[in-house]
C-alpha cells in the first residue's frame, strides 16, 4: 500500500546538467516524506514565484533515506517555462514537493521476464523501479530484466548508468550514435518473438508516440504491458479532474480516468488513443 502523501519544503542539494536540455535535481526532504513506489510522481513548485502558477508533475527517479532526512532525485527535461526555471535553480533554493502521488507499477508474481522500455527521460521511473528492488520479490527469486532505452542521440540516453550492470541493456538512438539506429520500439519488435508471452511483462514510459507504437506492436500479442502516461495536471490528487485519459469501458463506451490518481500507470490495453476516432 502507498503511504500517505504530504506537502514538504524541499531544499535543492544539487542541480546538475546531465545532457543538453536535461538536468538532475537532488532535493533534500524531511524524513516524514513517505517512501514512493516506483512509477509514482511528485508535484514540484518554486514557492518564491507567483508564476508559473501550477506545480509540475515529475516522476521519482530515486529516493533514499539518510540520517535525519530523505533525498529525492528527479531527472528532468527542459520543455517550457516551468522546467526551464527548475533547470536554473541553485543549490540551497527551496521547492515545495507534493507527493508521492499516483499508482505505480504492479508486478504480478508469475512474471519471470521484465522488459523496461523507455524513451528519453521516461527512463526515470524505470530506473527507480530497477534500483528500488520491487522487481526481485516476492520469493526473492530473481527475475530476468532487460531494459530497452531509446533517445535521439547517445548523449540523451540519460540515466544509462543506473541500468548498466543491473540488467541486460539494449539501446536505440534515432541517429545510430549508440546501439540500434531507429526508434526503441523497432528494436523491441525485432527481439519480441524471443520472449515468452505468458511470463513477460513490459513496463514502459516515454513520449506519446512511443507508447502508441508499443500499443500497435503488442496488439496481436498477449504480452502484458503497463505504461506510465502524461497529461496536464493541476492538483495531482484527483480533485480537479483535469488530467484525464480516455479508457475503453466495454460495450464501446468511453470513460475518463485520472492520470494523477488512477494512473499514471495504466494497462496499455485500456487506453483509447483518439476517442473521436476509436470511440
Amino acid at each position, binding site marked *: 500500500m502507498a503511504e*500517505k*502523501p*504530504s*506537502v514538504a519544503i524541499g531544499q535543492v542539494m544539487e542541480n546538475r546538467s546531465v545532457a543538453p536540455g536535461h538536468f538532475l535535481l537532488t532535493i533534500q526532504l524531511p524524513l516524514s516524506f513517505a517512501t514512493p513506489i516506483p512509477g509514482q510522481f511528485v508535484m514540484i*513548485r518554486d514557492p518564491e514565484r*507567483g*508564476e*508559473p*502558477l*501550477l*506545480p509540475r508533475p515529475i516522476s521519482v527517479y530515486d529516493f533514499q533515506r539518510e540520517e535525519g532526512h530523505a533525498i529525492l532525485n528527479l531527472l528532468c527535461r527542459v520543455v517550457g517555462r516551468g522546467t526551464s526555471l527548475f533547470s536554473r535553480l541553485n543549490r540551497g533554493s527551496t521547492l*515545495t514537493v*507534493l507527493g508521492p502521488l499516483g499508482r505505480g507499477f504492479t508486478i504480478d508474481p508469475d512474471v519471470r521476464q521484465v522488459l523496461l522500455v523507455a524513451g528519453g527521460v521516461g527512463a526515470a521511473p524505470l530506473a527507480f523501479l530497477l534500483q528500488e528492488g520491487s522487481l526481485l520479490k516476492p520469493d526473492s527469486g530473481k527475475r530476468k530484466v532487460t531494459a530497452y532505452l531509446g533517445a535521439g542521440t547517445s548523449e540523451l540516453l540519460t540515466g544509462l548508468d543506473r541500468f548498466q550492470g543491473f540488467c541486460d541493456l539494449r539501446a536505440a538512438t534515432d541517429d545510430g550514435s549508440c546501439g540500434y539506429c531507429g526508434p526503441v520500439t523497432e528494436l523491441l519488435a525485432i527481439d519480441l518473438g524471443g520472449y515468452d508471452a505468458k511470463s513477460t511483462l513490459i513496463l514502459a514510459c516515454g513520449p506519446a508516440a512511443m507508447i502508441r507504437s508499443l500499443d500497435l506492436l503488442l496488439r496481436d500479442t498477449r504480452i502484458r504491458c503497463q505504461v506510465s502516461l502524461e*497529461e*496536464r*495536471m*493541476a*492538483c*495531482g*490528487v*484527483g*480533485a*480537479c*479532474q*483535469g*488530467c*484525464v*485519459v*480516455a479508457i475503453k469501458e466495454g460495450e464501446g463506451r*468511453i*470513460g*475518463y480516468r485520472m492520470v494523477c*490518481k488512477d494512473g499514471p500507470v495504466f494497462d496499455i490495453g485500456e487506453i483509447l488513443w483518439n*476517442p*473521436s476516432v476509436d470511440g
Partner: protein
Amino acid sequence: MEIEADKKTVVPGRLAVDICGLVLKNPVMTASGTFGYGEEYAPFCDLNRLGAIVVKGLSLEPRQGNPPPRIMETCCGMLNAVGLQNVGVRAFIAEKLPFLRQFNVKVIANIFGETIDEYRRVTEILTRAAGVHAIEVNISCPNVKKGGVAFGAYPDAAAAVTEMVRGETDLPVIVKLTPNVTDITEIARAVESAGADAVSLINTLTGMSVDIERRRPHLANVTGGLSGPAVKPVALRMVWQVVRSVKIPVIGIGGIMTADDALEFLITGASAVQIGTANFIHPAATMEIIDGIEDYMIRHRIGCMKDLIGSLQTDGC
C-alpha cells in the same frame, strides 16, 4: 507558540459567521470542483477546521465530462474545461457523503442541470439525504432549451431556476453567479427576488488559449473557464457591486490564494469566501487562510466577523 494559541482561544467564535441560518466556524469554504468530494484533500487539511466544504457540481445522472486536454495554465491563472464530470447525485449520496459525515463540517452540495426540471430533481434527492447542509446552485450551466446560453446569463432564466430549487427544499439555497455578464447586480437582484438565501460569486470567466505551433486551441473544448489570481480583481469588483445591490449574504470567490486575498473580499462585504484554484497550488491553503484571517483580526483588534465584513471605507476615495 503557547501565547498565540492562548490568545486565539479567548474568543472561540471570533471567526464564526451565520449565512442565512447556516452557522459556520469560520468564513472559509472550499470552492466547487476544486476540492473533489473532500477525501482528496484529507491528507493535507483537517477537514474539521473548514467553514464548509462545497463539493464538485452534481447532476442527476453521472457525466463523463469533456475530452482531454481539459486544462491549461495561463499567466497567474488556469483554464479548465472539465465539463462538469461527476458521479451523479445518487452515487454522491451513496459513496461520497458517508465519508463527509464523519467530519464536523458543513457540506454544501453544488448542483447543476441542463433543464429547470433537472435542477429540481437533483434538489429533491439531496434534500432527502442526511448530511447536506445547503444547496449551491450553479447557474453557469448551458440551458439546453435556450440554445446553450447559460441560465445565469439572463435574469429571467436565473430567477426561474432559483424559484424551482427554492420550492423544492428547506435547505438554504445559495445561487452561484457567473461573471460573464454585463450587469451582475441585475442577476443578483433577480435571484434574490426569486428566493435565494445567499449568492456566491464568481464562477469562472470564459477564456481561451492557443498552441501556436500546432495552430490549435490548447483545450479540446476550445474555450474553458479562467480561475486563479488573474481573475481576483474582477471577482472583487463584482462582489463590491453585488453587496450594495442585495440584502442577502454574498460569498466571495475568485483568485483567493492567501489570507490577505480573503480579507480583501471580507472587508469589501463578502460574508464568507471560497477557495478554489489555490488548493491545487498549495493543498493546505485553506488552513493557512483561516489562521491568517484570525491573526489579522487579533492584530487589528477586531472581535468578531461582523465588525470586519463590509468595513471598507470609500469616502474621500
